[in-house]
């Protein structure tokens, strides 16, 4: 089951450049929440702060309060590795492990974290690949083919399966379909819609139609600030802020 996210006063920096200014946002459990905005507005940085991936970049840091369920992400005793185990992430470009088979890709998060139960691993791999709608396409070649041999769309679904296999509570997706063709994109979108039964999903997207199709809630970011955050329908039909309206009507961005 998914859990909700509470963001309070979140700031982030790259070196001396501040890229997020005091973000407050409440993401409800088992919903899909979209984050939109022009390039460089901080939307990717924002989701990378939610699982402490931001700080893996040299000189990058973040401060503020993020609570995911009962876990205080930036609490002093919180281990970032543990955070990332509970909050999965799918990246913009499909990034399967090229030297591993399809099976090993999906099982990587389990095996490399010391999970040794063979039978349970088999079950989790199958379940994750079915959830990500890839199972039927790869079940014959699980051990024979490398993850890198799949098509771009399949690779991205493989990456989703890999993230799901460790049974996270939240799934962060950073423009998961931006490198894919329309058919693969629609498959991923269908998949996101299914996933919210089990997970809380936060998706960054460039594509406003995509946000409108998959998300119940949408936040609009501009220059490192959250300008407006509301029901998707409201954002796209009657936005409260002039800048949101300008963006969604295509006047800039």
């Amino acid at each position, binding site marked *: 089951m998914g859990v909700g996210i509470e963001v309070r006063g979140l700031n982030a920096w790259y070196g001396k450049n501040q890229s997020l200014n005091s973000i407050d946002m409440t993401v409800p459990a088992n919903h899909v929440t979209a984050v939109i905005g022009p390039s460089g507005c901080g939307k990717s940085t924002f989701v990378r702060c939610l699982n402490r991936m931001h700080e893996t970049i040299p000189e990058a840091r973040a401060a503020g309060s993020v609570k995911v369920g009962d876990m205080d992400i930036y609490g002093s005793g919180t281990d970032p590795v543990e*955070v990332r*185990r509970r909050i999965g992430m799918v*990246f913009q470009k499909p990034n399967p492990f090229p030297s591993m088979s399809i099976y090993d890709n999906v099982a*990587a*998060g389990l095996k*490399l974290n010391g999970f040794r139960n063979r039978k349970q691993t088999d079950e989790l791999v199958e379940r994750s690949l079915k959830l990500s709608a890839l199972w039927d396409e790869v079940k014959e070649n699980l051990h024979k083919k490398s993850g890198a041999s799949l098509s771009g769309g399949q690779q991205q679904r493989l990456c989703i399966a890999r993230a799901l296999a*460790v049974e996270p509570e939240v799934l962060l997706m950073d423009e998961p379909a931006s490198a894919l063709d329309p058919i693969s994109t629609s498959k991923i979108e269908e998949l996101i819609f299914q996933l919210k039964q089990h997970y809380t999903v936060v998706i960054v997207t460039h594509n406003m139609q995509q946000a409108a199709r998959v998300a119940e809630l949408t936040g609009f970011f501009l220059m490192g600030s959250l300008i407006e955050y509301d029901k998707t329908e409201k954002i796209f039909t009657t936005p409260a802020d002039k800048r949101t309206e300008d963006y969604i009507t295509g006047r800039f961005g």
Partner: protein
Amino acid sequence: MRGVSLWRRLTNQGATAFAIAAAILVLVPLLAIFVYLVIKGIGSVNIAFLTQTPKPPGEVGGGMANAIVGTALILGVASVIGVPLGIGAGIYLAEYGRNRFGDAIRFTADVLNGVPSIVIGVAVYSLIVVRQKHFSAFSGGIALGIMMIPTVARATEEMLLMVPNVIREAAYGLGIPKWRTTLSVSLRTASAGVITGCMLAFARVAGETAPLLFTAFGNQFWNLKLNQPTAALSLQVYTYALSPYDDWHKQAWAGSLILIILIVGAVAAVRIATSRGRLKGA
């Protein structure tokens, strides 16, 4: 327009011809050496050569069996020292060494790479042989192992830096700790290149003579102990080639041939072993 396309075609063909000629030129000395070795050496390679120890000076016959085994022994010690230390240093340089300490190590490795091999032999002689008061296969292996480290380290570093960062991010995103990511994801992704680096280092030191002159020293008799003076093919070839005996000259050619075959064989064996089980599309 016609003139342009003719000119393009000519330069294209010219450049292709140049590339092919360069490739052939590179192969010529290699093939020439190998063919010459086979012609000169094959006549003296026989069962006795491969199974017997050297005969006393002046007598005809005998072989280099002890030197073949000695070379394997010394190279084994060298690889046990050079490969793990080199890979470890390479991992440090690529994953943690983006700082002044890393730069210092990088510089040191490059300097070590350029140190004449005989100097390394002298250093190991004074540090180990003098202290232990006798020559040994072990000290020879250390000298060659030291020579392997910088090559292996820099190759490992280069190969790890070629692993795209998104691969590491994928692992971090799964909650895999950094050390695990480095070993099981980055190093594994770079493994083909790292193995090539190790093989290059191995092949380079396998034929070294100078560092063995006063470490392994050479031996006319069988020895399988690491702490005793040990024969090596390169040393034996050196001694035999300088001798006044015709039969030893022939055996020196045969020894060179066997050395080359052993090196090529070892490299090929590692290649085959590591390419087995490679996945489709990897």
